[in-house]
C-alpha cells in the first residue's frame, strides 16, 4: 500500500506544479485586463499621443502594427506554403529535404534580436530601404517562415493520400492535383498557421527595433518607405523611457496588444477545432 500512497502524493505534487504554471498566466491576463480596462476607449484607440506620450491615444502605433503585419503576411504566406508543398509533395526523403529541415529548425531558433541585426544590415543598409515599413515587414516575414512552413506541412500531411491517387489515376498532373485535390482540404490548417504568424508578428519587438520602429511620429506613414510606430515598441518605450507617465496609459496599451494577440490565437484555435469536427474522411 505504500506505493499507492506515494503515487497519490506524487500526483498531487504534479498537479500543484501545473497550477503553479497555469495560475500566473491567468492572473497576468486578468491583471492587465482589470488595470487597463478603464484607459481603453474610442479616444484612446483613435487619437494620436500628445504631451510627450503622457496623454492622448495610440492610434499611430495600431496603424503601424497593422501595416507591418499585413506586409509580412503578404511575403511569408505564399513563400511558406509553397515551401511546405515542395517539402511534403515533391522532396520526399532526399538529402536536400533533410538539409532544408535543418535550416528551418535553425531559422526557428535564431534569436529575434539577431533577425533585427540581419534586417538592419540587409534591408536597411545594403538594399538602401532605410528604416522603413518594408524593411521591418520583410524582417518579420523571414522570422515567420518556419512557423508557416511547419503549419502548412502539417496541414498537407493531414490530407489523405487517396485524394492524390484518385486524381493521378484520372490523368491529372502533379501540380493540378495539388492545386485542386489537396490544397482546398489543407486550407484550414494553413489558415491557422497564417493567423498564428500574424499574432507573432504583431507582438514581436526586437526585430523591428532597428528596422522600422519610430519613437513618435506626428503623422501616419504615407508609403511603405516611411518609418512607423508599432504597438509592442510603443509599450516598450512608454514603460521604460518615459518617466511620470500615467499608469493607465501603460496598462491600456498592454491590454490592447494582449487582446489583439490572444484574440487572434483564439480565432486560430476555433478554426482548427471546427475543421476537425467537420472533417469527413
Amino acid at each position: 500500500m505504500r506505493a499507492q500512497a506515494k503515487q497519490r502524493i506524487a500526483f498531487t505534487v504534479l498537479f500543484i506544479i501545473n497550477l503553479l504554471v497555469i495560475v500566473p498566466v491567468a492572473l497576468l491576463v486578468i491583471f492587465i485586463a482589470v488595470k487597463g480596462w478603464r484607459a481603453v476607449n474610442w479616444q484612446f484607440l483613435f487619437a494620436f499621443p500628445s504631451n510627450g506620450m503622457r496623454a492622448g491615444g495610440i492610434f499611430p502605433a495600431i496603424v503601424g502594427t497593422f501595416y507591418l503585419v499585413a506586409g509580412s503576411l503578404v511575403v511569408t504566406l505564399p513563400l511558406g506554403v509553397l515551401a511546405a508543398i515542395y517539402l511534403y509533395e515533391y522532396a520526399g526523403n532526399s538529402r536536400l529535404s533533410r538539409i532544408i529541415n535543418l535550416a528551418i529548425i535553425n531559422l526557428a531558433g535564431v534569436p529575434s534580436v539577431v533577425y533585427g541585426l540581419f534586417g538592419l544590415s540587409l534591408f536597411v543598409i545594403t538594399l538602401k530601404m532605410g528604416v522603413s515599413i518594408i524593411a521591418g515587414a520583410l524582417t518579420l516575414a523571414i522570422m515567420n517562415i518556419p512557423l508557416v512552413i511547419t503549419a502548412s506541412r502539417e496541414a498537407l500531411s493531414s490530407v489523405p493520400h487517396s485524394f492524390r491517387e484518385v486524381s493521378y489515376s484520372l490523368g491529372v498532373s502533379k501540380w493540378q492535383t495539388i492545386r485542386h485535390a489537396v490544397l482546398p482540404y489543407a486550407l484550414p490548417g494553413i489558415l491557422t498557421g497564417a493567423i498564428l504568424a500574424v499574432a507573432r508578428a504583431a507582438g514581436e519587438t526586437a526585430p523591428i527595433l532597428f528596422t522600422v520602429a519610430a519613437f513618435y511620429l506626428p503623422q501616419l506613414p504615407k508609403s511603405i518607405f516611411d518609418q512607423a510606430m508599432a504597438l509592442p515598441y510603443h509599450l516598450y518605450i512608454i514603460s521604460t523611457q518615459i518617466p511620470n507617465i500615467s499608469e493607465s496609459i501603460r496598462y491600456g496599451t498592454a491590454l490592447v496588444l494582449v487582446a489583439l494577440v490572444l484574440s487572434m490565437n483564439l480565432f486560430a484555435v476555433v478554426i482548427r477545432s471546427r475543421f476537425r469536427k467537420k472533417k469527413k474522411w
Partner: protein
Amino acid sequence: MRIKAIKEFFIEKLIFFCGITSIIFVILIFSFLLKEGLSFFKEYHLKDFLFGRHWYPISEPPKFGILPLVLGSLLVTLGAALISVPLGVACAFYIAEVASLRTRDFLKAGVEMLAAIPSVVLGFVGMVTLVPFIKGVFNLPTGLTALSGSIMLGFMAMPTIVSIAEDAITAVPKVYKEGALALGATHWQAMHRVILIAALPGIIAASMLGVGRVIGETMAVMMISGNAAVMPHTFMQPVRTMTATIAAEMGETVQPSGHYFALFAIGIVLFIITFLINFTADFFLHRIKR
C-alpha cells in the same frame, strides 16, 4: 496541352525555389552577420573580445570585452533552466499521463496562451509586479536583478519545454507502460522508472530548445534584469545579457563604427550558440524516431 506543360514546369521551378529559401535565408543571415561582424576583428583582438572583462563601448579608447555579457546571459539562462526544466517536465507528465481529457485540454490551452503573450508584455508585467516583489522579499536596493530575469525567462521557456516533452512522453510505446503495470508497478512507478527513461532523449531535446529560447530572449530580459554590464557574481545583482546589449545599444551607435561592428560580432556569437543548441536538440529528437 503544351502551354499547360510549360506552366506546370514554371510552377514546379517556383515551388522548388521557395522550398530552398530556408537554406538561402540561413546562409544570408550568417553571411550578413559575418560581413558586419568580421570588420570588427580587423581592429580588435578576438581574444580581447571573448575574454575581456570590461564592456565600455563609448569610453576612449573603447573596451569591447563581452565576458560580462556572456556570463550575464549564462547566469540568467542557468537560473531559468533550473526553474523551467523540472517544472516543465512535471507539467508535461501530468498533462500526458495523469490529467483527464478535459483537464488536459484546459492545461494545454493555458500553456499555449502563455506562449502567445508577447515578450514585451511579459517584461512590462514583470516590471510592475515581479521586480518590486523581489526587491521587497530580499531587501535589495533594486529588484532589477538576474533572479527576476531568471524567473520570468523560466516562465517563458515553459511552453516550449512542456509541449515538446509531452510529445516525447506520448511517443513512448504503450507496451512499456503496460509491461510495467503487469509486473505490479503502480502508475507512478511506471512513470518515473520506465516512461521517464524511455522519453529521456525527447525530454533532453525539450530542455535544450527551452534553453535556446531563453538565451535568445531579448525584450523581457532587457526590461527586468537591470542592464548593468558588469561581471556577475550573484543572482541578486543587475546583469546585462548579450541580447539586451544589442537591443539597447544598436539604436545609439554611429554606422559604421567599432561599436556598431562589435554588436554584430555579439550577434555572431548568439547565432552560433543557438545553432549548436538547435542542432543538438534535433539530433536527440531524431534518436527517438528511430
